[in-house]
Structure formats: C-alpha cells, structure tokens
C-alpha cells in the first residue's frame, strides 16, 4: 500500500484543517499531518504501509479500518511514564509532537525477526500449545516452565512502562431521562426528539466529532451538505438546556438498573493534560431509558493473504478519502458482496481516488449500482471473487477468479489485477455490543438479550430488550439515512414513554441521495489453498476454524477458546460473524444454530486508571483522631488499624520501636501513661427497651447494671463464636454508651441495627454511632488518680465517688468530660471522653496535670504489651474461630437468659475440651518469640505438627522476658509444660513454657485499688 494525500477541495477532507500542519513521529521518523487527522489517516497520507506486526506469526499489518474496530494498526503511543501500548492508530487524534512506535517486532516493523514464527506454518495451528511441551514423565512441570519463559517473551503486544502514571483521572455521576449512545443520524434524531419533549438527555459519541456516518455522507439534508447539517444540529443540541453532549466519550458498559459507564477521553488528544485537567473522566450515567444508536461495523471477506497491508475495509477507505482527503493507495480495487462497496468506490472516485477494479461475488447487480460503478471508470468483475492478495509484504496485485454463487466456490478463470490497495466489503454487523452485555433472560421475555439472525441482512440483530433500552439505526438493523432518522425518533418516543413523558416533536429532515440496499450476498469466505485470516490480530485462519471443527471444538464458545478467535484487543468486532459462518458451513448448520457468544464489557479497552477514577492513589479515606497532629509532632510512628491511624509508639531520638514500647509500658506500671483511645467504636443506645436489647445481644447479663456503672460485655455471633467485646456504660435509666473494638465498630453497629429492625422491631431502642462524637483518652498507672486529682480535686475521683467500673460526668475547662474507671492494662486506670473537637484540649490538660508524675504517652505496642501481660484478649484472639470457653471467659456466658449465639454455642464440637485454648507462653532462655510462631513438641529439625500458635507477642518489662498469648490444644490443662515456639519463616525456634495467661496481678488488686 502506498497511501497518498488527495488534492483537497470541497467535499474532500471534510474533517481536516489543511491550514494547520502538525508534526509527529512514527518509529523515530518525523512526518506531517493536519489538525483533524487521526494517526492512521496521517500515516496513510505519508505512504506508511506497514505499521504493526500480528500477535502470533508476526506478519506485517497495515491500517484496516477507520475506527475502534481496528484489529491491526496497534502502536505504542508516547514514551516514558506516559507510554501506552496497543493504541489503535485509527482512533488517536493527531496532535503536535505525537510520538508513536510500532510494537511486537524486532528490530523493526518492516523487518521483524520474529516473523520466523511463520515458518513452522501449519504446525503452529490452533491447539498447538496443548499438544506439546509436556516434557517427559517424572520431569513434572519443569520442561513447560522452561519453555514458557520464551513463549511469554514472544507473546504480548506492546511494552508497558514501569513508571507510575503522572496523570490523574476523574469521575462524574450524571442522571438523565434518556441516554443516547451514538451521535449518527439515528442518535441525533433520538436526542432531538427526546429533548423536544422536555426530557433530560445525554448524547455520547466515541469520536471527537459527532455525526457517525453523516461525517462522510454525500447526502444532502434539508438541502444542506450532511456535514454542515450535523454541525448545526449538534450545536443546537448542545445549546439546549436539557441536553448534555459528550464527545470523545465511549459508552463502555451497560450495568443493571439502567446504569452505564462511559469513559471520556478529556486530554488524550493532547501532548499532555493541562494543569489540573484529568486525563480521562469516568461517567457513571444513571438514566431512565436509553436509545442505543451505535451503528454497524463493516465485515471483511476472507480470502488468501487477506491480511496484507493494503487490504482495507471499503467504508474505511471511503472515509479516509472523504473525511481526511487520503487515498489508501495509488490504485485501488474494490471487492464486495453488496451494494455499499460500489458506492464506496464511487464516492472515492469522486474524491479523486483511482479505482482500478470492482469485483463483486454477485453476478446480478442493479442498474443504479452499475451506473455508480461506471462512474468510477473501473473494470467491473461481477460474479467474481478475489482469490488471493499478492505481493511481498504489502499488496501489489490481486488474483481474481470467477465465482459460483450457488456453490460458493471459485472457477478456473484467473486474472491478475494490479492494485496497491483493496477495499473490501462483506456486509455489515450491527454493533449491539452494549445490549448484548446484559445477556440472560428477562422476567417478561424468555428471548431477551439473545441476538436474532436476519437472513436478509445476513447479520445478527439485537434481541428483545431486557431493560429500558431501544435500538435505533444500523445497530437495530435499520440501515440507510432515512431509516436511521425514522428509527431514531421511534426509539426516542419509546424511551420518552419509559419516562412518562409525551412524544415530543418530529423533525426528520428531507434527504437527497441514494437509496441503498445494505443486504449482502451470503458469502463470507473465498476458499483457496492460501492462508486466509478470520481474526487478523490473533492470526486465526479459516483453516484453524475448520481444525477446531475437526477436533470437536464446535460449540461457539469452544471455537473461541480453542482458536482464540475474537479474543484479541478488538474482541472480534470484524471477525466474529465470519468465524461463525465458517464454522456453520463446516457443521452444515444455519449460522444462528451455531450460536453467538455474549459480548462482555467494556465495548473498547478502557484505561485501568480511568475506572479507578478519583480513587487512583487515594484508595480509602483515613480516619484520624482529634489528637493526630500531636502524635505526629511527638515522634509517633503511625499504624494503620483498619481505616484508623494510631500511634504505634513514640520513638525518642535513636530509640527503636521495641525500646520505645518497653519504656512506655514500664512507665505505665511504675507511674502513669496516657493513650489515645478515640478509635474505639462507640454506640449510643437509648430507649425504654435498651436494657432488654443489651441483655439479648451480650452473652452476659446487663439487666442489673446500675446507673453510673460500666460493665464488660461479650458479644457472640449467632453461630456461637466470639464476635466482639467492650464495655457498656449506663448513663441513666434508659441511656447507655456502648464501646466496641476499633476494628469491630462498623460490623457491631450493623449487627445491632439488623436485630433491632429485622428481628425485634417491637423493641423501642435507638442506636446511633457516636464514635466521631467522642474523643477518648485513657490514663493508666498507679499515679493516674493523682493526675486526675490535679484537675478535678481529690473528692470526685476518690474510690468512693468513682469506684472500679464507675462512670461519672465532670466539668473541665468549661466542657463536659465523661470519666469511667476502667482498666485494660490491669493498673489503676481511667477513660476520659469529651467532645471530639475538644480532644486536643483535654489531652493537653492531662499532659500538663501529669507533668509532676512524668506522664508518658504510649502507643498501640505498649497498650498491647500491657494487656498481654494481664491476659486480656483483643483482636488477635477474637479471630472468629474462638468461643468464650476457649478464651477462659466461660464466666461471661449467662446460663440464666437467652442471648444471640447461645443455642449454637451448645453444638457438640464447640463444647469439646480438645479445642485450642488460651494460654500464655514465656521464653525460657531469653530468646525472642516472634509473631506468628507455632507451638510444637520437637526440635528445629523435626518440629512435628502444630499444636497451636501464638496470637499476641511482646517483650514483657514486668516479667523481663518475651511472652506471648497463644491458642494451644487443650491448653488449659497444660500450664507448666515445656514446648517450642517455632517460626521457620523467620528462622526462629524458641524454648518456651506454657503458663496461665494472667501473668500480671492475677487477682486484680492494682486496678481495684
């Protein structure tokens, strides 16, 4: 092929601005194009014929189409961090400085050493990989593993970058009454009609310029050139207050509930996005109804060498001539089985393209079409077919044979027709990809979604709608401008009815131009002994399809999976129907009985970053406590605890985390420490039935909890396993403040709400999450009371006024502070809650008051150390597989009342004493017990099986050794036993002694003091 820019005049190059020249590069060579060009049109204009190599055989490939259906012309666009592999040259708009490279070749697209893949030829057919590389018996997978390295490197298309994407992405939620997909004749008609009835309309088109086929149409609408008409109408629509027009915006997926995902390419037509401009925007469009007017995709014909650069779809060739003023070759032949090929030839000729021959499989062609043919001055070969494309690398001639329409075979007459481009038309396939994504059946329609074969059009049409969508134009089999306008309006009326709106006004323009018959002859393949391709990108040949048939892979899904037909980046847009037709012929079945595969979203490939949208790099919200800044300023390492960030430890200069937490924990035991507990879940429980409700959801009793007291409570799941724990404070008769674990807050809230609403709706209980209302600070250590006395005076804090588990409200600095005497560490301790916005103030006051006692802020690690020493369970022990009995909490399980989980806790296996039970272990020789150890009887070399595992591990300053809580088989009766904590992945094997988990102050004298 050697494309060439035509002499530009009115009607030729309607989409480009020849006054504006752009410089771009391909494979390092610099070229010029115009504003309005695509990369493909600019390459064609510059005579670049080989732009890519195919996936499997690395055969040279050129430009095959003019749109998103392109299977061949894939290039790598941009470089560095913005490098994008597999971009279709037919879609990318030319911009100044555009940089593109061919891919999947070495050293160049023209000369690719990997083309050696063609040599084994027929050996490399469908199913090749399944039949070899098994290696020899006993070798296991090694041989394949070895070969696979090379195969992987040879496969793949373009190269990805390893640099992070420098651009950002955005999302948009949009609502409308009628979404119109596609802004061709049918889409514009639908949008106008819907807007005229007052509907909110969104009109999307994947191209930069709206108009679809109108952009290259030769017809006049209301006496105006189609191109001018489109521009005017679209401008009017865009001005309409109810209409939003989105160009460069591909509707990719149809989801449930009339939800559509569309991707707008905001800045892909620029060298880089403007500052603050997203590269792409993902539109989530929720509509009441939709008009799908996505047009149709031209099909090629299958014949020998049909993949050669120079073979191009006829309508694409016509568009290059009309819109971009480019001829695909110096002499162009046309091969068709339908009238549209002839009209494409005529339109090209009118633009100045030299048409040398028109070859039609049909012998009987209408007079109007013959006239159009005559206008091109080409030699006419009816009842003929192209048997083979000839030429080294690129097309130089075609071999034409006479064609028998009844047997679909060629005769013996052969002629060589010289040409460097061949425009082919094998009929049209409606683009109902979006509606096919829905698949499945519908309540009211058993046929819904399933495509229907139209033997007149030789095409599948979308099946009955499964939801509120209405097909229009070529997508629905309504070909030609007149039908497109009419069906667009009809679809809009149906969509308006879905919205409960009136019918609006009709405004179909008067159309001057051809009346075209789109129905092709049922010819899909011209059989010859030459390699003929069905799927151009994946190199699936017609023989591969027949081989699949021979080997029994005859169902359409098997065909696809066995040959990879239709699985390339174009998802078979130009090859699926042809593949089916060849399989149908092999099976001697009508095409529809072979079936179709369901199209899957997205319609065209979508940047992963665009779907991530504004979440790219901002994966999840962080939850911060009111004292967050103080922690950071005071050298706290922050630890992600679910969405929360919590201080891990406050690391003094040169101090390790371990040194820091040991210091902090020691300070608590010896004097006083302060810790931020704002992250605990807090639920306000109120109402006349609040106490009854708590009594049902906790395994221990709450009926008799006095006002002004807190109680530790256990919650079980319905299946009897531990769910969560925490304290609940009775603030007055009908008002409680429940606390939960940090991680469990959300699920506890949902659990409670579910039971209140669904199970016991008659209980008068109000549940409100107040986790964000309260800042929480815990003071712990023998000096904690002294600190509080500094702030509140001695009396309110005395043991009488605030006994263990007591709760009261006091004033401090003009605000209310709730104080509860609770201990997680086993020391004398308090929790103080105040309004979150005042949290820092409370913290500062406590720090100030604690200064005489060298108050020490402590983090999660020390908090954990203190509770491990005390044998208090937390998240790692509440792992969803433990029961109260396992953790030594049987006393918390009421026998006097029912509660959630009680019944299934009685199941036989949960009552067994063979289960893993909570113990502590102590390192006996000073070695460090590391997290994740298992308890075994044997030495390092022969550890034996696991009898249990550690759950929470620390260095205990109190015991001066490494300790851990652990779950051990029958652990309760094994205190004193010597074992090993083995940790092979961390290369540790530590001798340990099993002890009671209550390692510090087992009688609880300190916290009660």
């Amino acid at each position, binding site marked *: 092929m050697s494309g060439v820019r035509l002499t530009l005049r009115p009607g030729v190059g309607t989409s480009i601005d020849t006054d504006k020249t752009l410089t771009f590069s391909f494979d390092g060579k610099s070229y010029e194009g115009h504003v309005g060009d695509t990369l493909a049109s600019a390459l064609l204009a510059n005579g670049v014929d080989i732009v890519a190599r195919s996936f499997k055989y690395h055969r040279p490939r050129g430009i095959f189409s003019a749109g998103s259906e392109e299977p061949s012309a894939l290039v790598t666009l941009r470089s560095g961090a913005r490098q994008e592999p597999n971009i279709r040259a037919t879609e990318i708009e030319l911009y100044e400085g555009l940089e593109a490279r061919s891919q999947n070749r070495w050293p160049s697209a023209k000369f690719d050493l990997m083309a050696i893949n063609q040599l084994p030829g027929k050996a490399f057919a469908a199913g090749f990989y399944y039949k070899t590389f098994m290696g020899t018996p006993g070798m296991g997978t090694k041989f394949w593993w070895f070969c696979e390295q090379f195969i992987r490197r040879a496969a793949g298309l373009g190269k990805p970058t390893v640099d992070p994407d420098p651009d950002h992405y955005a999302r948009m939620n949009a609502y409308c009454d009628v979404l119109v997909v596609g802004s061709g004749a049918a889409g514009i008609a639908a949008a106008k009609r819907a807007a005229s009835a007052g509907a909110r309309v969104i009109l999307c088109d994947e191209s930069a310029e709206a108009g679809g086929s109108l952009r290259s149409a030769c017809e006049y609408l209301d006496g105006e050139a189609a191109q001018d008409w489109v521009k005017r109408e679209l401008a009017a629509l865009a001005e309409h207050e109810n209409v939003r027009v989105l160009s460069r915006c591909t509707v990719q997926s149809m989801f449930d509930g009339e939800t559509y995902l569309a991707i707008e390419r905001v800045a892909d037509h620029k060298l880089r996005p403007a500052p603050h401009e997203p590269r792409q925007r993902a539109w989530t469009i929720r509509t009441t109804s939709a008009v799908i007017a996505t047009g149709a995709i031209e099909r090629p014909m299958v014949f020998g060498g049909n993949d050669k650069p120079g073979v191009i779809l006829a309508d694409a060739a016509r568009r290059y001539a009309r819109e971009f003023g480019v001829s695909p070759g110096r002499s162009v032949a046309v091969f068709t089985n339908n009238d549209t090929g002839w009209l494409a030839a005529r339109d090209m000729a009118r633009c100045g393209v030299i048409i040398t021959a028109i070859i039609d499989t049909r012998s009987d062609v209408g007079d109007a079409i013959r006239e159009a043919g005559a206008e091109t001055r080409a030699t006419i070969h009816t009842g003929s077919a192209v048997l083979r494309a000839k030429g080294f690398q690129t097309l130089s001639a075609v071999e034409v044979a006479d064609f028998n329409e009844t047997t679909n075979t060629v005769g013996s007459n052969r002629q060589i027709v010289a040409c460097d481009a061949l425009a082919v038309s094998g009929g049209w396939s409606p683009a109902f990809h979006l509606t096919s994504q829905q698949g499945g059946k519908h309540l009211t329609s058993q046929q819904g979604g399933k495509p229907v074969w139209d033997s007149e059009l030789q095409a599948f049409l979308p099946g009955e709608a499964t939801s509120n969508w209405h097909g229009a134009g070529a997508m629905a089999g309504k070909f030609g401008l007149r039908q497109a306008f009419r069906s667009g309006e009809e679809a809009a009326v149906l969509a308006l009815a879905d919205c409960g709106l009136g019918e609006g006004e009709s405004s179909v323009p008067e159309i001057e131009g051809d009346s075209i018959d789109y129905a092709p002859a049922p010819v899909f393949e011209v059989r010859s002994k030459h390699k003929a391709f069905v799927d151009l990108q994946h190199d699936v040949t017609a023989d591969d399809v027949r081989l699949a048939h021979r080997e029994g892979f005859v169902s359409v899904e098997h065909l696809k999976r066995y040959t990879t037909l239709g699985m390339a980046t174009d998802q078979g847009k130009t090859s699926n129907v042809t593949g089916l037709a060849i399989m149908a012929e092999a099976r001697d079945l009508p095409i529809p009985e072979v079936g179709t595969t369901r199209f899957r979203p997205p319609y065209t490939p979508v940047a992963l970053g665009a779907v991530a949208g504004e979440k790219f790099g901002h994966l999840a919200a962080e939850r911060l406590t009111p004292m967050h800044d103080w922690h950071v300023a005071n050298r706290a390492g922050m630890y992600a605890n679910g969405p929360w960030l919590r201080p891990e430890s406050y690391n003094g200069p040169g101090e390790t985390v371990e040194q820091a937490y040991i210091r902090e924990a020691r300070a608590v035991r010896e004097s006083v420490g302060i810790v931020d507990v704002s992250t605990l879940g807090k639920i306000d429980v109120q109402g006349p039935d609040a106490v009854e409700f708590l009594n049902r959801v906790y395994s221990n009793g709450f009926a008799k909890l006095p006002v002004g007291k807190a109680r530790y409570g256990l919650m079980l799941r319905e*299946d009897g396993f531990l769910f969560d724990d925490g304290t609940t404070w009775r603030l007055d008769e009908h008002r409680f403040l429940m606390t939960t674990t940090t991680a469990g807050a959300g699920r506890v809230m949902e659990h409670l709400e579910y039971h209140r609403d*669904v*199970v016991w709706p008659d209980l008068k209980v109000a549940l409100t999450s107040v986790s964000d209302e309260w800042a929480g600070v815990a003071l712990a250590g023998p000096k904690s009371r002294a600190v509080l006395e500094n702030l509140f005076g001695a009396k309110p804090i005395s043991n009488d006024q605030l006994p263990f588990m007591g709760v009261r409200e006091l004033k401090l600095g003009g605000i209310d502070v709730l104080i509860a005497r609770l201990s997680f560490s086993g020391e004398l301790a308090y929790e103080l809650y105040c309004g979150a916005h005042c949290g820092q103030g409370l913290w500062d006051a406590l720090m100030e008051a604690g200064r005489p006692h060298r108050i020490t802020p402590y983090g999660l690690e020390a908090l954990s150390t203190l509770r491990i020493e005390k044998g208090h369970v937390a998240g790692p022990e509440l792992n969803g597989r433990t029961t109260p009995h396992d953790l030594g909490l049987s006393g918390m399980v009421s026998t006097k009342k029912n509660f959630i989980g009680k019944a299934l806790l009685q199941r036989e296996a949960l009552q067994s004493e063979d289960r893993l039970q909570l113990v502590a272990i102590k390192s006996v020789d000073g070695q460090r017990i590391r997290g994740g150890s298992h308890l075994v009887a044997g030495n390092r070399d022969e550890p034996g099986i696991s009898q249990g595992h550690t759950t929470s591990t620390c260095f205990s300053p109190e015991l001066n050794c490494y300790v851990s809580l652990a779950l051990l088989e029958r652990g309760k009766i094994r205190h004193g036993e010597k074992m090993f904590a083995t940790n092979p992945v961390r290369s540790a094997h530590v001798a340990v002694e099993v002890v009671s988990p209550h390692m510090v102050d087992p009688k609880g004298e300190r916290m009660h003091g």
Partner: protein
Amino acid sequence: MLLTCPYCGLRDQSEFTYRGDANARRPSFADESIEAHAAYVFDRENPSGLHEEIWNHTSGCRNHIKVVRNVTTHEVVSCEPVGPFAKALKRGRAT
C-alpha cells in the same frame, strides 16, 4: 443497580449493604434449640429467579428494606420497608 429506599428514594447500590435472605427467620427469642438455630443460620433455599432479601441503606438513613429481586436478571421487583417505622413508611408517610 439501584434500589429504592422507602425513605430516601432511588439510590445507587453502593449506598446499601446486603444483609441476606429475608426468609431466614430467627427462631423466637425463647427458643434455645440447636436444630432451629442451625436451620436459621446455615440452611438456604438459594433460589434462582425471585429472591427476597434484606438490604440496609447504610450510607443513607440506615433503615433496612426487604427487596424482591430476580437474581437471574438482577431486576428489582420491589423494595419494602422493614423495622419499627415500616408501617408508617408503607402508608407513604415518610415520618
């Protein structure tokens, strides 16, 4: 997919949390039998076609709704309020 919250109106599914089969009915509170609870907790009819299920409008009013949905087509057939205010909401009185 969109669901109609009887209080907030038609909303995107991302605002809701799925809470399972609406026909899994907890035994009466007095019942402590393993059989009855095991059937409630573990056994599901899991039909294709119409399915009655509970959703919570977690990112909205936090009310629960009983949704009848065709699980073969994802078509939402109805959304009914459940919970203390179900009657008021059914009568069309938001509050």
